[in-house]
């Protein structure tokens, strides 16, 4: 399979790899996918008092497109408010990375990971339900 240059770039130089302390109340953790499906993404955000995502980290088990999608997602959420981050759609990731149809699920997973991380953050704050469907899988962390 031929990968786009952007996918290769994220694969070769993934942005924001790592982990944030998941017990930190300012940190939201989203873990989506499953090992038997060949894709697991962990995306974490650190949110400041103004509701702005000031840091984001990821780790991904999956193909090059999955790695690139989650790497891109961390880049995009950084500096955004939670509301803005929720507006990131999988199709934006598909377009930015030129993902072929067979890899669209990678972008869907990245969108889910963002939502799950934000949901986890809200849950910790005692404010459940603001994210809508697609949320609530932070329990894996």
């Amino acid at each position, binding site marked *: 399979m031929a990968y786009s240059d952007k996918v290769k770039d994220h694969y070769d130089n993934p942005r924001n790899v790592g982990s944030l302390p998941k017990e930190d109340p300012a940190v939201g953790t989203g873990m989506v*996918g499953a090992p038997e499906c060949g894709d697991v993404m962990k995306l974490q955000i650190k949110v400041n008092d103004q509701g702005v995502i000031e840091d984001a980290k990821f780790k991904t088990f999956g193909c090059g497109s999955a790695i690139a999608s989650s790497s891109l997602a961390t880049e995009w959420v950084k500096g955004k408010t939670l509301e803005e981050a929720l507006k990131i759609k999988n199709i934006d990731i598909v377009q930015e990375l030129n993902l072929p149809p067979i890899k669209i699920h990678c972008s869907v997973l990245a969108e889910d990971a963002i939502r799950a991380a934000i949901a986890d953050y809200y849950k910790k704050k005692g404010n459940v339900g603001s994210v809508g469907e697609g949320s609530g899988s932070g329990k*894996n962390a």
Partner: protein
Amino acid sequence: MVKLPIYMDYHATTPIDPRVLDAMMPSLTNEFGNAASRNHSFGWKAEQAVEAGRGKIAELICAEDPKEIIFTSGATESNNLALKGVAEMYREKGDHIITMVIEHKAVLDTCKTLERQGFRVTYLPVNRDGLIDLKELQGAITDKTILISIMTANNEIGVIQEIGEIGKIAKQKGVIFHTDASQAAGKIDIDVRNLGVDLLSLSGHKMYGPKGVGALYVRKKNPRVRLASQMDGGGHERGMRSGTLNVPGIVGLGKACEIARSEMKEESKRLFSLRERLREGLSKELDEIYVNGSLAKRLPNNLNISFAYVEGESLLMGINEEIAVSSGSACTSATLEPSYVLKALGVGEDLAHTSIRFGLGRFNTEEEVDYVTKRIAETVKRLRSLSPLYEMAKEGVDIKNVQWKKE
């Protein structure tokens, strides 16, 4: 300095041995006759070349008579002809066929077609090593069983079945025994007489011959196996496979068989030591890697390993500009489904997604093996540093107990 890219996918296909190409050149150029032209020297020459090739193939697998070799376009066609040809010919005798779950698609899909035509097919399971249980085979045979089709060596994991034992069981029960030997022919000793094989498929391009040519061994005596032809035409190949013979291909296949026969012993020793060098090198560099299938009952040139916590395709992406290997099955890696062969062994789907198949061959060197070891190890380590699963495993979380949210 090693020359890149390195080819280590010899189960998929092999390059033509230069000696094979040399042997083929006359029939690709001046000696272009049709082997069925009975009345001029061009035809006679072509026929001679074909018969010489037939003889060499017969010798490689210890067939009694070169006439038992039928030329085809490759092992897929040989498998189709064997299964459909027997099914059609012996339909009145019975409607039951036995095969196993880790056969190549050329056998499995042919069986599916036969099922649609009303035949019943038993797909024997395999154990963790990738081997069928002979008692189970015996138990599956009924008075309606007309054919057993069990491959000699598997294309993904290289595991070699107990062909001689299966042959014995087939003889006792009077059932025809076919084996797909595409991966095994020219790599390990095959003696159709001793093994009790009645039909055997092989392919040119898996053994340093050209693509587009293969053969089917069809036993003539004890028992005489008859096949309904699947291709109508001029009645070539004793009526079993019509179509003008692929003379250059046949000459090439013959030469490939001749080389394999005279060099097999040395070559398999060399490939085995390269394979072990690769396996030991990787084991030294990396924890949590698992060989899929029996290591003892395996082709000398095959290694199929799961690199836990690293998805196979991402691993290939890190190396595939320099190294040619396969993830999962080469045939199914476009589908994103993990390999059905590994699933059948009971390899968890999580580990099945992390498997790589290495196929070593005639032109690989120690330097190449060392280079591949180094690059694979580096890439696995880098991807594990990105892997949430590796992180969890190192924290002591049992990944199997996690409630994953499946998409």
